[in-house]
């Protein structure tokens, strides 16, 4: 345990490995953040500070980039990611109704994580399987031709599989 920051030194290992693969110049900022997010699941504040110290890129600039691009997350995500497609094909096939049912079933809004940390709900534009519209993706599995009642059942099944009640 490191006394100054109360973090296990192992915590910074991925950070060090990732940074050693870069020169630390500005044009690498996006790929660096992408790798860091892959390793940590999101971009923790202390990691951003450390990145700034190491590369000399100002925290404001890093935050500017991290908040501009929707891929970057500044908060930890839930165990499962549920992505609902709001692409055009899904929209004309009733994605909004599916989204309402999904939000209602989970009790959260788009972009939020359930209080039990199980599910983060995100919206995306086109998952690439428009012929199955409307579509949601849970982790890497796509569920297509959804209706409000089907999507509620899918979430109930997921909770059951996790042995949790809502």
């Amino acid at each position, binding site marked *: 345990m490191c006394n100054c920051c109360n973090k296990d030194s192992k915590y910074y290992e991925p950070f060090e490995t990732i940074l050693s693969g870069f020169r630390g110049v*500005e*044009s690498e900022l996006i790929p660096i953040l992408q790798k860091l997010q892959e390793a940590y699941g999101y971009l923790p504040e202390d990691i951003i500070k450390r990145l700034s110290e190491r590369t000399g890129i100002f925290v404001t600039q890093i935050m500017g980039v991290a908040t501009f691009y*929707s891929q970057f997350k500044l908060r930890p995500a839930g165990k499962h990611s549920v992505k609902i497609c709001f692409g055009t094909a899904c929209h004309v096939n009733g994605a909004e109704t599916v989204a309402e049912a999904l939000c209602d079933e989970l009790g959260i809004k788009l972009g939020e994580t359930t209080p039990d940390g199980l599910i983060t709900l995100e919206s995306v534009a086109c998952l690439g*399987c*428009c012929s199955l519209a409307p579509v949601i993706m849970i982790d890497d599995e796509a569920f297509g031709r959804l209706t*409000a009642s089907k999507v509620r059942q899918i979430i109930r099944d997921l909770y059951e599989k996790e042995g949790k009640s809502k």
Partner: protein
Amino acid sequence: MKLLIGLGSCGIAAGGMKVRDAFTELSAQNPGIDLVIAETGCMGMCYKEPMVELIDDKGFGTVYGGVTPEIAKEIFEKHILGGVPAEEYVVAKSDGGGAEGSFISKQQRIVLSRCGKINPESIDEAIAMGAYKGLEKALKSMTPEEVIAEVLASGVKGRGGAGFPTGLKWKFAAAEKADQKYIICNADEGDPGAFMDRSVLEGDPHSVIEGLAIGGYAIGASEGYVYARAEYPIAIKRLQIAIKQAEERGLLGDNILGTGFSFHLHIKQGAGAFVCGEETALIASIEGQRGMPRMRPPYPANKGLFGKPSNINNVETLANIGWIIRNGAEKFAAIGTEKSKGTKVFALAGKIKRGGLVEIPIGLTIRDVVFGIGGGTVSGKPFKAVQLGGPSGGCIPAELVDTVIDYDTLNATGAIMGSGGMIVMDEDNCMVDIARYFLNFTQSESCGKCTFCKIGTKRMLEILERITKGEGVEGDIEKLEYLADQIRRNALCGLGQTAPNPVLTTLRYFRHEYEAHIRDKKCPAHQCKALIKYEIDPAKCIGCTACAKKCPVNAIEGKAKTAHSIDQAKCIKCGTCLSSCKFGAISVD
């Protein structure tokens, strides 16, 4: 025999992996048989996924659709072991037969000629079907000027949306003197509901690499970038493999094919910002900054990536180049209309019966695509409109279904050719809602640099939201038109300049729908929830309870065998009851 399994994104989403595993297992159980199982990209008929194609020793292909592990077993026993096609699952055959033959017969494939035919992770299969022959011809027997002249003569225009002649663009970049130039492939594909570029990268990445290398040679660039959307992991992975293979074969890297020309290719992943499809924003993003467009001039051809002359082309544009050099400009220019040459790939989706990836010779009509290829609406309800060009484009109404698909004719309707998104809508789709949908998209993707785009689209969106909520007032339409005009003229980049298009085209062709929302507080398509009401006709209701059981919020009351009724305060207007009543007792208005 060879079995190709369609494993593009949609094939995987539809369960293609399970089908592959089933075939692999069956094949392992029958060690004696002569069967090669391979993966391929999008075959085009996404609506029939998961799909497999069985190619016999004479090269005759039989395509099966809607395959499950159980059906796989049947196909394996009947066709692979028994030699007789399992006809009920056949969707197409090499000779144009099969239940879905008409999906293919009107198409013409240049960009997609190898998609769904080759294993995208095998450079040998790509080369066997002509890949890199154009590069070889260009490097060994043509000067850069001749390459540009050939591309100019072909008449190919940019497929990324703006439709600028590619040869001309290359000429400008070639004319610049600099120690370093760049050629960039725009694979950001931001239109939400379009997947042409992704399918090309997933199905035939070599076609894009070849186009970039030829372009690099033509303009004098030794470095290239592919800026790929981060949400396309499979495309990125296959492109990485393809680049490595091309390097190993001496088709990329130093001294290509011993000609002295060197070209290095890098991949940059986007990070989720639609505006990064705009050229100057894309450049800023590769440089590691926020992807904000800047003023032009200077154009990228003069001062682009890292301040050096740069040329940016779309994936599909580049995928045409190898074919053009290999087969000659004349052959390419023979396809299409007088002013628009070649083919165009469309991602056909929405309320369409047969949705997927289609490549057509330019010059077919919308009717040919929506009805001839797509089979009409999936609901069987009347076709209402088709949306082209996504957030920058517009809606073409059913009465213009015979409009010819080429750049100029489409522009005249107020829509655009766009990058290839084609979304079909039926009478249940509300056009005010579609306009609101796209404006909501562009509004949230606006980078915020200029006021007209940032604030103007927000004001337009607020008005559209009010209208769909039944709170529209007289004068709203005029206000929308005024704002649209201001934004078009004063926004800095294409995102803002084209953002009003979906509103303007729906106003042009469906003004009466806006008026119905505003004046009569009615949504003619019965889609805007605030304006509709579900009701049960007590005279028709026999009290079967079917609707009450289905209602997710228990808004339907009534005893069995007596007329039911809907508690309007509870009803969330999901429409479930409407489709569950077999007696036509429920209506919506």
